[in-house]
């Protein structure tokens, strides 16, 4: 319930935001950035190889200067009793799904941003704070973000997290495919540390081929489905598994890119033909409230 009302709130905020920027002369997105590069990178996650050691969680935190417990503490498997989601304090988490038969191992699934090829977060973001980079990463720009949290609603994987606990300059946080590290020629931190190389980093094109080869070579090990190959128009992170992805709580998604909610709402505006003046008035009110809030925060 709480969630739903939050969603409603977010949608409303977004509606306002959308209408405002819809009228502003500023260019929405830096277009060339969001063109898909043929050689964009990706990661193939082999859930049949992952052992749930959670070293990736640790490495991700270290790479992003997030507070973390010592490495040894990640051997503790009791965290798997609960299903976890990535949030502002952990950009990636590993969950566990029990084995179907006693002689099999449980299945561990690492979750993070999928780095969609047609990211809903990018098209939802009204100020163009999100962009799909040439290398494949979908990144977020703190300078542009206005905190509307539109991306959170739009993302079909519910990835972007908001630092609700931070009063000053809360940020949207999500896996950035280690944009900084890869720029320096390094591997994403999680890929680098994974002992099993359950995370294979390579050209997305190449990975798709490898994934299908693996399925062909080991039909007993994998189901014939590369999750992310086509889902929401394709994602940079893709998965292999030995059982239906629905059982591993992957959302069942079609081949079409998830619509940025913006478009839907903009259509809505068009349909109801809200007079611009009203929107300006609304904008004024919002700005005024925000200004006041800022003042109080500063006073504190």
């Amino acid at each position: 319930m709480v969630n739903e009302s939050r969603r409603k709130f977010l949608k409303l905020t977004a509606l306002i935001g959308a209408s405002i920027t819809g009228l502003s002369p500023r260019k929405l997105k830096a277009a060339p950035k969001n063109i898909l590069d043929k050689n964009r990178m990706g990661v193939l996650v082999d859930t049949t190889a992952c052992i749930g050691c959670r070293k990736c969680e640790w490495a991700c935190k270290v790479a992003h200067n997030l507070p973390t417990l010592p490495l040894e503490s990640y051997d503790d498997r009791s965290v798997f009793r609960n299903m976890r989601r990535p949030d502002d304090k952990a950009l990636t988490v590993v969950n566990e799904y029990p084995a179907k038969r006693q002689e099999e191992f449980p299945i561990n699934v690492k979750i993070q941003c999928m780095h969609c090829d047609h990211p809903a977060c990018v098209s939802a973001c009204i100020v163009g704070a999100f962009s799909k980079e040439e290398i494949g990463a979908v990144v977020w720009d703190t300078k542009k973000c206005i905190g509307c949290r539109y991306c959170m609603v739009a993302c079909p994987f519910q990835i972007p997290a908001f630092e609700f606990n931070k009063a000053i300059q809360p940020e949207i946080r999500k896996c950035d495919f280690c944009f900084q590290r890869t720029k320096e020629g390094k591997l994403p931190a999680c890929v680098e540390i994974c002992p099993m190389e359950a995370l294979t980093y390579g050209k997305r094109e190449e990975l798709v081929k490898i994934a299908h080869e693996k399925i062909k070579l080991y039909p007993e090990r994998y189901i014939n489905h590369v999750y992310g190959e086509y889902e929401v128009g394709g994602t940079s992170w893709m998965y292999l598994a030995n059982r239906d992805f629905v059982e591993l709580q992957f959302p069942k998604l079609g081949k079409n890119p998830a619509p940025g909610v913006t478009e839907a709402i903009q259509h809505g505006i068009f349909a109801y033909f809200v007079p611009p003046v009203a929107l300006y008035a609304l904008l004024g009110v919002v700005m005024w409230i925000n200004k006041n809030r800022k003042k109080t925060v500063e006073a504190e």
Partner: protein
Amino acid sequence: MKSKILLLLIVIHFVINAQTKISKSHSYQQLNCSTCHSCQIPTKENPCLRACPRESMIRIDQKPEEGPRILTINKIKETDIYEPVIFSHLAHAEMAEISGGCRTCHHYNPPGNVIACSECHGLQRKREDVSKPDLKGAFHRQCMNCHRAWSGNTDCLVCHQLKGKGKLVSQNKELIVKRIHPEIKAPNKITYTTNATAGKQVTFYHNEHVNLFNYECGDCHKNDNCVKCHSKINTVSTSKKSTKELHNKCSNCHDTNSKVNCSFCHSEKEKGPFNHLVRTGFDITKFHSKLSCSRCHTTKNKFSGLSNECSFCHGKWSWDNFNHKITGFILDETHGELECNSCHKEPTYSKLDCSDCHEDKSYPKDKPGRLIKRL
């Protein structure tokens, strides 16, 4: 001109090949180059190796002692976190002997010596060809498969030692050098009480399967791992097994599908050990006891279709190719010149008939020579 270039290339190919660490002579082996290489002339720089054809494994059989005793795994430079791992190759090879032997880990090997993992799995995680795991991934995939099943967890510190955090017992070199897997004592006989309606008892003579029928451990235990004997979690699988699963181990050799065969293994009481005479009507204790089954039963797992007539295996006997002495009976001069079938009327040579020449004589009361101790 063309042929000269080709010759040159071939020479270069051999020179380069001689430099690679993969057993130098591997290119001279009885093997089609294209099993491993996808191009005509592989070079060290571009060996154009095919993806490991794991299905068409090339068999390697080395005794555990022939491999290295311990290995210090320090190639993977993750030195900022862990110390190098000291690995008892010997103990692990001994453990593997019961299941698949070297192949348990060395899942693909060109002909020749067993090669190190690093020959195929490179050190670089960031690389062009990501179709097979890098060395770190390859190691862990092998280790964790058993270790996880064995201990039920994935603790890194079982093998790894954090930098600068004192010595782990498991990483004490002196201890590891001495580490061996104790000899596995196989039982002679195992009796199973099954749920079968008729023939509840199955008596399995392990010693016979090993010593008499010459099965190798891996023939039956190839899918067993450490957990079979050591389990820190559950010793016996409590999940109910289907009849097919229960029969799996035996059905490689025994036809467990046909109902007619049930009594071959199942009975109401414990069964006695294998007896060739009882089972087949052919006594092998006298002359054939030292032979391995495969000397006569030449097709693996096929034991029917042999005749008990001597000539079936031995061909036709005459004085040129048969020394009667080896039967433990030396014929006297008169009898030593007769045709075999003058006395042995049956093709099994088991009985003796004197009636062709002698009306009043019979064996064994009267002997056409003298008995000696059989050779």
